[in-house]
């Protein structure tokens, strides 16, 4: 075969090698995982959506009708994680220091599995899971499940969790 063919093959191999490296790198770029922190209020409308991630819900999109007394999220108002919010899912929220909890607290006064917020037929309840320092709703120390609604503040150690809708 001609010298030209050999040269084309030789350079083609180098190009293809780098094409491979680049495509691996581009897969890496879209392969983020872990947790994502989204700024909720001042999100600019023309922020580009990530190509690989699921589309982030636009803050302005109208949501289905909701009852303001039924909480849909919990917000940490005092303590090391102030400002964090978490959606309330029907499967409930397990709170504690243990990494397997839904809400992992960075609080020395919290137990490993401290409390959980759970869904019953008539609304949301908070239940203490035998924690050392207790879970408080107002001045009342929670034992058996206690009903909670929007605006209720739950205190765990140095953390205060508020239910919002």
């Amino acid at each position, binding site marked *: *075969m001609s010298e030209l*063919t*050999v*040269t084309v*093959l*030789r*350079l*083609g*191999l*180098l190009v*293809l*090698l*780098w*094409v*491979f*490296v680049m*495509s*691996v*790198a581009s*897969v*890496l770029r879209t*392969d*983020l*995982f*872990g*947790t*994502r*922190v*989204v*700024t*909720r*209020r001042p999100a600019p409308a023309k922020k580009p959506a990530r190509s*690989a*991630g699921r589309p982030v819900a636009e803050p302005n999109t109208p949501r289905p009708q909701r009852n303001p007394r039924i909480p849909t*999220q919990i*917000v940490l108002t005092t303590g090391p994680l102030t*400002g*964090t*919010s*978490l*959606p309330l*899912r029907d*499967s*409930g*929220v*397990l709170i504690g220091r243990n*990494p*397997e909890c*839904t809400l992992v607290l960075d609080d020395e006064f919290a137990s490993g599995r401290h409390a*959980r917020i*759970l869904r019953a037929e008539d609304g949301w309840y908070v239940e203490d*899971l035998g924690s050392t320092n207790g879970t408080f709703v107002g001045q009342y120390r929670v034992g058996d499940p206690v009903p909670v609604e929007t605006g209720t503040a739950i205190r765990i150690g140095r953390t205060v969790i508020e239910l919002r809708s």
Partner: protein
Amino acid sequence: MRRAITTITPARGRNVELLLTALAIGVVILAYINVSVAESGTVPADLLGHTGILAAIALAVHLVLRWRASYADPIILPIVTLLNGIGLVMIHRLDLAAGRDFSSGLALRQLVWTGLGVGIALAVLIALRDHRVLRRYTYTAGLAALVFIALPLTPLGHSVYGAKIWIKLGAFTFQPAEIAKILLAVFFAGYLVQTRDMLALAGHKVLGITFPRARDMGPLVIAWLAAAFVLVLENDFGTTLLIFGLFVAMLYVATERISWVVLGLGLAAGGALVVYQFASHVQTRVLCWTDTFSEEGMQQCGQLATGIMGMAAGGISGTGLGRGRPWLTPLPESDFIFTSLAEELGLIGIFAIIMLYALLVERGLRSAIGLRDGFGKLLATGLTFVLAIQVFVVIGGVTRVIPLTGLTLPFIAYGGSSLLTNWTLVAILLRISDHARRPEPEFDPASMDAPTQMVKAR
């Protein structure tokens, strides 16, 4: 500012993996065509047969991953396939240069070893459903590693080029120290995850550095010293360096103390100085490193000089596969395969290969970050460092960054033991990355209502 934290579930990426693996096979096919066009001027008739075997092997791994580890990292398999394939093509090319055809050449044997290695890797992937099981065998692994390292000193041992690192079983030779790498990573991970707090916090302070108590540090030091001692008896300094690097890296990752790195490098320097005084073997290696082109250096280890000359002949874009003269260097398919590749692929090609290794290492460390259990984190880090240190020691050795020691370039270099071990290592890494990327199961409130059971009473 109000923030919300949501979990991103990663895509499984199995289709991406299939696509990238196909691309990797494409690169290997093009490289194979390159070789035979340069050699005989024709596209080989057995092209699809030969590359098909590699493709089938890669496809088998891919299918098992879909079946048993569907969240495993999608990038590891394509990279490893490409590295293995490039190595095969290079070995085949050197076979042709030495007058061996495919059926009698080293490439076929390497391909058989690849098949065996993948077989073991698949067995590991299928049998090992959870890497945390390995933690039960912490001390067993440590002991087994020492036994494997010491095996060549027994009558089974077999010596090649002055290094007693082989065992011979019939017609079959094997380097047992290769397996010890994985076993030692398991041992270090299992031991460190249990004692790292003690190592980091308890101890005596001397000169601003906190030294741990002997009872915490003892087993590690004993294991490492025993391994190093035996390896020095066997003249296997490459593996000594590898195990020491692994030891320091894992200690640093476990305790987050930079003083370990300083201490480790100091100890290594001291040890190297002592060995230098006593072992003539090491003195030669150092002479070759510092004075490669002197008369004595050329006499003792001319292959280092010819390797460097080969790389220089390749230049930026290389001579092209099949058009250089890499066989002028002794051992062009094993210890010096890096210079062979650098001569024929040039700086551009060899940097692509180094990038592939870097990406592989990055994926390993990323899996370690994604994991939630300490043992898995340390194990993933350890296995990744085993790969990284091998690459550094080999490439550093042939490019005169460090003295030349005998390790193999993972997946590329000719050598059965190394291929088997590295495929097994990758299987464990894939299993770990599957755990790291798999989304957690939703918290099930019903499980909390079940009565607590005493599982094990001490």
